[in-house]
């Protein structure tokens, strides 16, 4: 399986708990990465557009707005294919970490 790009992975991860609007996704990404990855709106929506074209994310009806600004916003949701893609990527990363830990342990054993 081809690895996902960081932008794609973090957007799918941010949508895993439930529907989000763009700003919510950006905030979640900043939180997940301790502020190391601050995604710009252009990058975010460009990637969302491609994820929607690929059938991994879809637009959903917005909940009743809490503020005037919320009225302008669209919400996004993972599709079943998007969730499977995210699961596969997490599984792949777990495998990588297992291998890396094993190599590190072996290296420490030799040292």
């Amino acid at each position: 399986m081809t690895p996902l790009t960081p932008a794609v992975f973090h957007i799918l991860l941010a949508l895993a708990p439930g529907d989000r609007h763009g700003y919510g996704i950006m905030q979640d990404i900043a939180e997940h990465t301790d502020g190391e990855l601050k995604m710009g709106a252009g990058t975010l929506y460009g990637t969302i557009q491609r994820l929607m074209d690929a059938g991994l994310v879809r637009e959903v009806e917005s909940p009743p707005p809490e503020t005037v600004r919320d009225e302008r916003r669209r919400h996004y949701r993972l599709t079943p294919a998007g969730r499977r893609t995210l699961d596969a990527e997490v599984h792949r990363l777990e495998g990588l970490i297992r291998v890396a830990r094993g190599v590190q342990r072996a290296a420490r054993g030799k040292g």
Partner: protein
Amino acid sequence: MTALYRILLRLYPAPFYDRFARDMSADFDDGYSDARHKGLVTLIEFIMRSHGDLLATVAAQWRYTESFMIWRASVSISLTIWALVFVIAAFEWPRGPATLLFVVQLSLALTTCAALTIGLALHSTRPEEQRIP
């Protein structure tokens, strides 16, 4: 500052603008408001990042449009025809004046550069999309 951001949003191709400009504008408003409460440095960093990201992604979005593909193909065909004309002229007039030979050599060099540029552009298409399974 938000007015400038809204004006710059107009630089996106129309389909992208129609689909996302409203959300991007709302996100910028919220980000601006949050950053302003965190101090001047955060605010400047936010403004620089937002505008930089916008300008970088404008170029990326235009690259995906049909008009850009047509423009790129037109330039490519024009350059090829232009180069062929000069090559034919050189064969038809081998003992012509030095200027003609100079023009032929120059055209070949320019055509090589153009072909390389077009080749590189065609090879570097949508890396994000290609990686999405």
